[in-house]
């Protein structure tokens, strides 16, 4: 008699002797805890403390140099009476509302372009990612030159079509648009994530679709988009969280101007913390933003159940 039992008996044996569902669940929960432990430990050690501290600070008045004073809800009350804060919030929402769709569409378009079977694709991909890598100062300098209302490249070009091209960074009505354009140009990371997502779509799906006679646009709509939806979802959430915290362009380039048109929420927050020495108020501002972003994200996650396909 051979020492190897018949295969189907092995399977039958495994099925019959498999642990029951409740024990399986408990095992899985335990395993999950193990897998999650790095994050949980990290959270307890490094993240929770400062977060709680900033929450507590939001109820105090602290200028770093003198001891902190408890002021209860005073900071939060002031939030709603602060015209500059409301303006900063409006500016930020405007910027985000323009940037998020633009980033997603441009990044996806570029990723589709880079997903083709073309020679020297690695070179092209590297070049397309360059804007994200180019040093901040150089980027800002360059865009400052491009947006120059008089002699800048952009307006020189536009003057062939219109009398009075916008004043871009010098014009309160156009400054945010200029920053949106600047930001969209550096969507390398989003593009790369889309690229990775596109790579993950099995080739057979396209083959099957084209055998069925589907044309490129229909393939895009019925294969690409659904298979890419987890990635799209990711990029939308990340873009939302990121754009609502826009800071660097204001800090380095526009300093909130002209006429506070680029005074963004986090830039104002930073100023209140490190220029006005008003840590408590800045913390309250941070938690207000947190609440807004959290609500937005949860809404997006609920809506995601309808259009995001997994596996």
């Amino acid at each position, binding site marked *: 008699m051979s020492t190897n039992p018949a295969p189907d008996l092995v399977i039958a044996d495994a099925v019959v002797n498999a642990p029951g569902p409740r024990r399986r669940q408990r095992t899985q929960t335990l395993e999950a805890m193990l897998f999650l*432990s790095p994050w949980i430990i990290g959270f307890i050690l490094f993240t929770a403390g400062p977060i709680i501290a900033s929450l507590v600070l939001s109820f105090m008045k602290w200028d770093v*140099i003198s001891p902190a004073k408890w002021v209860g809800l005073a900071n939060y009350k002031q939030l709603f009476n602060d015209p500059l804060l409301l303006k900063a919030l409006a500016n930020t929402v405007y910027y985000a509302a323009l940037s998020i769709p633009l980033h997603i569409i441009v990044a996806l378009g570029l990723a589709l372009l880079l997903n083709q079977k073309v020679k020297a694709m690695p070179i092209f991909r590297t070049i397309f990612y360059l804007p994200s890598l180019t040093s901040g100062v150089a980027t800002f*300098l360059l865009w400052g030159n491009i947006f120059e*209302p008089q002699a*800048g490249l952009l307006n020189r070009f536009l003057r062939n079509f219109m009398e009075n091209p916008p004043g871009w960074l*010098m014009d309160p009505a156009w400054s945010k648009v200029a920053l949106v354009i600047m930001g969209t140009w550096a969507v390398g990371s989003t593009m790369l994530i889309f690229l990775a997502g596109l790579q993950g779509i099995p080739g057979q799906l396209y083959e099957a679709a084209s055998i069925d006679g589907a044309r490129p646009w229909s393939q895009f709509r019925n294969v690409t988009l659904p298979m890419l939806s987890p990635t799209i979802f990711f990029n939308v959430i990340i873009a939302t969280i990121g754009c609502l915290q826009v800071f660097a362009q204001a800090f380095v380039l526009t300093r909130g*101007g*002209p*006429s506070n048109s680029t005074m963004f929420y986090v830039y104002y927050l930073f100023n209140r913390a490190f220029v006005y020495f008003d840590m408590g108020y800045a913390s309250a501002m941070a938690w207000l933003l947190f609440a807004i972003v959290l609500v937005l994200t949860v809404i997006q996650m609920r809506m995601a159940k309808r259009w995001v396909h997994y596996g």
Partner: protein
Amino acid sequence: MTNFLTRRGFLGLAAGAMLAGGSGLLSGCNQRERFVDGKLILDFYTPSSPEFNELYQNKLVPAFEKKFPKIKVRVNSSLGDAGYDAKLLTLIAGKMAPDIFHVTQTNFPFYANKGIAMPIDDFLARDDEIKRSDFYQKLLDGLTVNGKLVGLPTDFSTIIMFYNKDMFDKHKVKYPTPDWTVEDYLEKCKAFTLDTDKDGYIDQWGTTNPNAYNRWPTWVWNNGGELFTPDAQTCTMDSPEAIEGLKFYIDLSLKEGVAPTSEQSMGQGFQEQFMARRAAMIADSRFAYKRFLRKKGLAFEWDVAPMPTGKRQATTFIWGANCIYRDTPYPEESYELLKFLSNEVGAAINLEAGNALPAYKEAAENAVRNREDPKAPANDLFFLDAISYARQAPFPPQYADYEAAMNRLHDAFLGLATPKEVCTEFTSRVNQILQSKAL
């Protein structure tokens, strides 16, 4: 990547992490070493540029440590000034404040009334190596808050006019004379404002008019106006003289077109405009020598002249200084370092690093009168002459709010509002701030 990480390995990692974190927490607050080999370490925080940093490390620190063998100096440079203030606050909050930190007239006002600088009047009074009169009084005044001196200046410069002699020669314009007026200035500017490459855009200007707080008050003052009343309790930027003075300065770009507007000069500072020969005259400080005289220097002949006179002569000055942190556990030693950074030794190093003029009077006078730098322009002396009438742009205690109010003035530079409108709004806002007395 999947090879080394077995189940055991992973559990080991988790355990190790907990151990590390736990032991870290238990090891107590050893925040920084204060003594190494029995020598005290003083922390000096500064935004020094690379060259300055080099001089500190190679010249100043060894000289100081030689004089005080029991003390070592740790220079903590933030390498440029991005985030300098944020980091200083963080250090203070984390109880790792430096013993001495550097300030300039730009950021000092933010700290001035927060009481983080230690008064040094007592130290100075007891000192037999240096005295108050060794420094320019105006600089000391700038560092005096509520009657107490809270820092020692290291370097400074008055603002005077630089001009491009080659351009003057080329367009046959007479050089500025020491007593030239504001009207002369405008006239000369007009001669240079041209479209040199005939592409329809003006690309050369007579001057620049940057919206900097250490530049525009000059024009209020030389028109007889004032920013504040002498008791500093009321803002007077809405007086006709003040508005008119500021308007003249703003109109240089907006109306007369002899200076590039913010739009036209976007991306290039006014100093770069001068160096690139696109502006014939700029109001600048002796700090510019670092760029103008070093290496190959400027590609054209240039000189300096006092600021033009309006109803009276006026200009601003800028400065750098060091302060002792209020809660330092080693005030005596810190004072020694503070002194060293500003006395003859410190002054010499400042000069070598190209930091304008030392605050130490003797060193400054010698540097200029003895033409210690042979490349300096013929009229270098005007920097010293201007000291008698130079003033510091004033700062009220509520400086952060004051600075925010100044943003409104920028709108006039952009042509979004008239000087009269912004000055009136600015004045009422500042008076509001002053009266609230909130700090």
